[in-house]
């Protein structure tokens, strides 16, 4: 380590890589995260990009960002504000400065601060010269020109050379935070196995950035030591990958073929792409002509005994509504993964939101209950998807699993599970006709019907969207029977409460304030509640993964606190669900609808205000 540099040790650090959407910031961020995870840090990431594939170059609408929070201590969020901002052009600086801590470090590519670039970004004067950045440390790096200089004899064309400049920026950060550069070198060797020239170029530019940082004595080196993590084998996963893997694991555990019918939609397409890769595990994946065909092929697959899944995002869930009703009516197992995004309509396709909850709970004709669940973290999507499949198969009814763009795209280290360690899945398959068996015979405890599968002798039956007779399953218009069937389907979902865990409170178990959240806000709410508890506040957190039905002890937990505040990224869908499900409590609410996760700062301010009045 260079003796001339100052070294300090920090528990955690947040870096935000920003540039044009063609500048390779997502890749730089991902490589930094992987290197950090392999180094032994805890990590949490947040890709934040525009929906345009390539918006006009150099403009603020085309800025793509990737934030990574890494540390020696526990990391639950990708960090509110960054300690270091990498800005590849003025537009990136302009739009991203709001995410940088006061006093933070900015690394800029000075070569892209020409008058033209400044004008495109809407700067009237050069922020590097006009004193507006006096609160920050600025590292001025000639990233573009140095990259071209390094590769001038490489034989690559200018365009290809230009594309590697993200590695120069990455090299600077590797030096600053003492990342193991070899990990990334191996990545390039693997990625460009057939194109040695590209591998060598990327490695050379990465080293170039690293050495540049070492030669500029002004750069402060920071050490973030490896974390104390539970023993075991780990890998990095994002939420969509974890979801896909949870489904693969459930199919293997239940000894069923996995079937996915789906249609590409942001930010859910990765689930379809991931499962399409796993034909080796027997996954049958069909990219359909539309969202409706996606779910309908899955319903057909469920009828014939597959673990059937469809994946989508908000607008796609709207299109699937009628078919979900059919699956409820036919009492077939089906997993519907909805990776939520900003709505309504096309809304904010690449931004996160929790605004499909009411749609998941009620967005169908008739009294049509589904099991509704939510993923809490990127890595936790594995368990959520596994449980969604287990509940669907054991209770013979559709399950809607809500994740969202934030956890779907964000990544975390995941402790690898063995299939043998996962809970048993007991399907309702009937292998042989016994006694007075009918396909509509129900289990006494769960009310789940038998799953009779075509190909089985002497058990042929017809099923449909028409109301069914309670005993025989034949179409029936009998008024009393209809009421009985509506109540039975409702009761069947209610009894799922016996198959799900109680809600656990983190922090204080009773007292002044219970913070209530659901799904992906877990990391942010947890960090704030822990911090405030450490500061002596009487505050606890109940984060819901199971929404319909709610865990059995929900009312008991709510009754232990003086005040309850429900926090969510929508206008108040969960709080209103609680208001008519558990009417005996008063609920405060905190909502944000900006297509972004909460920040710890805003949450803390809100909770402090409430606690100060108690």
């Amino acid at each position, binding site marked *: 380590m260079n003796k001339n540099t100052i070294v300090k040790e920090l528990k955690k650090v947040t870096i935000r890589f920003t540039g044009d959407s063609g500048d390779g910031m997502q890749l730089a961020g991902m490589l930094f995260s992987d290197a950090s995870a*392999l180094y*032994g840090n805890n990590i949490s990431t947040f890709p934040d990009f525009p929906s345009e594939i390539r918006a006009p170059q150099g403009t603020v609408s085309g800025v793509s960002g990737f934030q990574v929070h890494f540390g020696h201590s526990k990391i639950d969020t990708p960090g509110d504000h960054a300690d270091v901002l990498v800005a590849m052009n003025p537009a990136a600086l302009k739009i991203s400065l709001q995410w940088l801590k006061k006093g933070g470090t900015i690394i800029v590519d000075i070569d892209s601060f020409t008058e033209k670039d400044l004008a495109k970004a809407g700067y009237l004067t050069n922020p590097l010269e006009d004193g507006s950045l006096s609160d920050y440390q600025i590292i001025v790096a000639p990233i573009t020109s140095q990259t071209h200089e390094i590769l001038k004899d490489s034989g690559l064309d200018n365009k290809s050379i230009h594309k590697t400049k993200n590695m120069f920026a990455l090299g600077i950060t590797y030096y600053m935070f003492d990342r193991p550069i070899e990990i990334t070198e191996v990545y390039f060797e693997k990625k460009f196995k057939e194109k040695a020239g590209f591998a060598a170029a990327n490695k050379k530019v990465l080293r170039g950035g690293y050495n540049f940082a070492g030669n500029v004595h002004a750069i402060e080196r920071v050490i973030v030591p490896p974390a104390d*993590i539970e*023993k*075991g*084998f*780990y*890998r*990095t996963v994002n939420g969509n990958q974890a979801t896909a*893997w949870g489904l*693969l*694991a459930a199919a*293997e555990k239940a000894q069923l*073929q996995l*079937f996915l*019918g789906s249609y590409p939609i942001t930010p859910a397409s990765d689930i379809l792409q991931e499962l399409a890769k*796993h*034909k*080796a*595990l*027997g996954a*049958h994946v*069909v990219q*359909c*002509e*539309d969202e*409706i*065909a996606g779910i*309908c*092929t*899955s*319903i*057909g*697959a469920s*009828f*014939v*005994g*597959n673990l*059937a899944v469809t994946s989508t995002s908000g607008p796609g869930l709207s299109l699937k509504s*009628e*078919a979900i009703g*059919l699956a409820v009516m*036919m009492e077939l197992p089906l997993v519907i993964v909805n990776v939520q995004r900003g709505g309504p309509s096309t809304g904010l396709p690449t931004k996160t939101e929790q605004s499909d909850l009411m749609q998941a709970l009620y967005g169908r004709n008739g009294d049509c209950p589904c099991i509704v669940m939510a993923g809490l973290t990127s890595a936790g999507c594995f368990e959520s998807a596994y449980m969604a499949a287990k509940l669907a198969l054991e209770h013979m009814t559709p399950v809607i699993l809500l994740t969202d763009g934030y956890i779907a795209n964000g990544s975390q280290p995941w402790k*690898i*599970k*063995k299939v043998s360690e996962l809970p048993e899945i007991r399907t309702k398959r009937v292998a042989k006709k016994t006694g007075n068996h009918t396909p509509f015979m129900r289990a006494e405890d769960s009310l789940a019907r038998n799953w009779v599968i*075509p*190909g089985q*002798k*002497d*058990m*042929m*039956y*017809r*099923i*449909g*969207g*028409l109301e069914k007779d309670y005993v025989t399953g*034949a*179409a029936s218009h009998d008024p009393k029977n209809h009421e009985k069937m509506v109540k039975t389907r409702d009761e069947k979902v209610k009894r799922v409460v016996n198959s799900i865990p109680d809600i656990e409170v983190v922090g204080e178990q009773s007292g002044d304030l219970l913070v209530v959240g659901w799904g992906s806000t877990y990391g942010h709410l947890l960090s704030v509640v822990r911090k405030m508890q450490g500061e002596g506040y009487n505050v606890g957190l109940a984060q819901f993964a199971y929404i319909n039905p709610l865990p059995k002890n929900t009312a008991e937990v709510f009754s232990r606190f003086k005040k309850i505040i429900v926090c969510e990224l929508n206008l108040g869908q969960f709080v209103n669900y609680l208001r008519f499900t558990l009417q005996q409590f008063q609920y405060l609410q905190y909502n944000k609808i900006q297509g972004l996760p909460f920040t710890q700062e805003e949450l803390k301010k809100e909770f402090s205000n409430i606690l100060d009045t108690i």
Partner: protein
Amino acid sequence: MTDVLSQDTLTLSAKDLKSGLEVKWCAGCGDHAILNCLQNALPKLGHKHEDIVIVSGIGCSSRFPYYMNTYGMHTIHGRASSIASGVKLANSKLHVWQITGDGDALAIGGNHFIHTVRRNIDINVILFNNEIYGLTKGQYSPTTKKGHITKTSPQGTIEIPFNPGELVIGSKGKFFARSVDNNLAITTEILVEAGSFKGTSIVEILQNCVIFNQGTHAMVTDKDVKDDRQVILKQGQPMLFGKNRNKGLVLRGLELEVVTIGENGITEKEILVHDAKMVNPSLHLMLINMKAPDFPVAIGVIRAVDDITYDAELEQQITDVKANSKIKSVDDLFAAGDIWEVK
């Protein structure tokens, strides 16, 4: 027929295929005849009783699965093609029949219909074409003749109708047949051919709705005109028709023409011979588009071109990947790639 006949299938009869449920279609409806035809056709295919699945959408014809003693699904409007596709792709051993109508398949389900045909998934589709919405009581459908007066077109429709066969050809279809509901023998024969064909087989049946569109096909199907207005196509045989079987079809330039044998020196030798296996669909399309009264309507298996099916190819890919992959279980998958150990 590749399936080995088991003891059960040998004894499968039309009677075994009746569910026993009271059939509730209107008296005189063409659906009754089609139900009988399928019940007569299925035993001839030699498939196992328990491997037959019948899927329908919504409409009068879609009540069909309830009347069949097989596995059956009565689903939602327009989506039967997708659900039937899912059944077949999830278990390719099953024999899947889709029952649909002109509204179900070509209006609300038009998108699924063309894509199912394009993929050539091995399912059999019976399309009951009565050129009207029956279950909703008499609105025009995508096959209603232009100008026809219905409840929703009091001044006559202003839409150009689909010809289902044309849509099949446009969707790269491999099998298209047409029949009429009042010819049980031919309908049964066609259904047997559709059932043994590997790929998406579309069978359009000109079906009469006695209540809302009585006689829409009468010009083609009435006893006194049918011999002159229908040409029954058989593989390898000349395209002859007429009461005296002395009329035939010839190709003049790029157009079909009706000729009479013995007139203007025409002999049987000059009459076109039907070949449903021709890959080039041009002649099939001309046959599909023939309309009364100038031409006879083509009945029979018009197109039946063997090709690889989507389901077979999907299974092949899975088999190949399984054979070549080191990943044999989910545990293998989790352990592959960049992992690290925390000690």
